[in-house]
């Protein structure tokens, strides 16, 4: 992690990320770094505020009216948006895949220490590392300020799942668990945090029938848990 202390390198990476010059696996690794580094996120946001105005240079194009109809319909139904698992393929996220429990612990340490030195005004992010009951780190999760949650497996969980679905829950102390969606056994899953789960303290994964818990509460064993930390 030492290399990333160089301010010039940090500035360059932030610029590369926003300009689009950074691609593929490098982009995902950088997102991992940002998850634990508020000042890096701050730099990226500053760049975005400047450069994203380029969007005005594209000739506007009126979307078909069915798009608004679909949006309006989904808002009226007031049901959670279908959670989609966009599998990102096998390449690229080798940082996470090769990430050992030691590194996961180091990440946790960074997450805990970092807020003391960082810009307090920076947007808070939430981070959690989920561990098995044997203390093995299996998932790293971060949630950004737009309400999107990124779940990365640290190793393949196919064997652990054994044909079951992995369902992620917010587990409020003394309250009922709230489903956050299904997580892919391998790679990255992106989820939208439901409004009802805005205050997350502890997360857990349970094994459920394919398609997820039929009852809306965990029905199978909870195979990993972790606390949510602000970074």
């Amino acid at each position, binding site marked *: 992690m030492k290399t990333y202390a160089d301010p010039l390198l940090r*500035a*360059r990476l932030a*610029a*590369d990320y926003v*300009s*689009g*010059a950074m*691609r*593929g696996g490098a*982009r995902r690794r950088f997102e991992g770094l940002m998850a634990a580094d508020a000042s890096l996120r701050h730099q990226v*946001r500053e*760049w*975005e*505020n*400047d*450069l*994203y*105005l*380029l*969007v*005005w*240079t*594209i*000739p*506007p*194009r*009126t*979307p*078909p009216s*069915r*798009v*608004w109809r*679909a*949006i*309006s319909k*989904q*808002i009226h139904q007031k049901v959670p*948006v279908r959670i989609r698992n*966009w*599998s*990102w*393929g096998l390449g*690229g996220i080798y940082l996470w895949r090769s990430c050992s429990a030691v590194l996961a612990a180091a990440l946790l340490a960074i997450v805990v220490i970092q807020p003391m030195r960082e810009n307090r*005004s920076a*947007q808070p992010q939430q981070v959690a590392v989920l561990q098995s009951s044997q203390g093995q780190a299996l998932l790293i999760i971060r949630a950004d*300020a*737009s*309400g*999107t949650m990124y779940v990365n497996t640290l190793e393949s969980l196919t064997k652990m799942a054994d044909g079951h679905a992995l369902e992620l829950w917010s587990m409020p102390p003394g309250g009922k668990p709230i489903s956050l969606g299904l997580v892919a056994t391998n790679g990255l899953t*992106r989820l*939208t945090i439901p*409004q009802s789960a805005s205050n997350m303290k502890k997360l857990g994964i349970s094994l459920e029938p394919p398609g997820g818990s039929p009852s809306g509460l965990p029905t199978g064993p909870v195979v990993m848990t972790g606390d949510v930390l602000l970074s």
Partner: protein
Amino acid sequence: MPDNPRHLDELIQQCAQGREAALEELYRLSAPHLFAFAARILRQGDLAEEVLQESFLSIWRNASRFSAERSQAMTWMTHIVRNRCIDLLRRPGYERPDPDGAILEAWADEAAGPLDLLRDRQDSRRLADCMAQLESKQRMAIVLSFFDDLSHREIASRLSSPLGTIKSWVRRGMERLKRCLS
């Protein structure tokens, strides 16, 4: 599109209070720009529709997280759209049509067209002035990298210059831009 970014801020804040009419107006004002942007990146209209729909649901549900002090409204929405597009591009088996050269064409010469569009707007005037100060090859490399999400190799073949050179155009252009903007 009214040249008043504050208005968009207000609309997002009203969305946070559950006012659907505010979302409708926000959509009317910004969707044509965001749709064109998504279609530009993805180069496929039907997928751009999907991205636009999901993005506006996300805007609606997360409106309370928007902070006008931290981000401009359009930047915040563009961020949501762009990230969804990039996710889509990463889907296994996704095949992206070749770029059509529209960006290259629009930004060629002294980029009068796009820069005038930026200058016309209060919020992007400063960016226009700073972009204008870049060498044209730096400007071109940045916009191609931004809109067409090309690998540097692709940019290199389109600008007929070696890969290393193009990379340094993007980076030096961004460094100069930063100095000018700050």
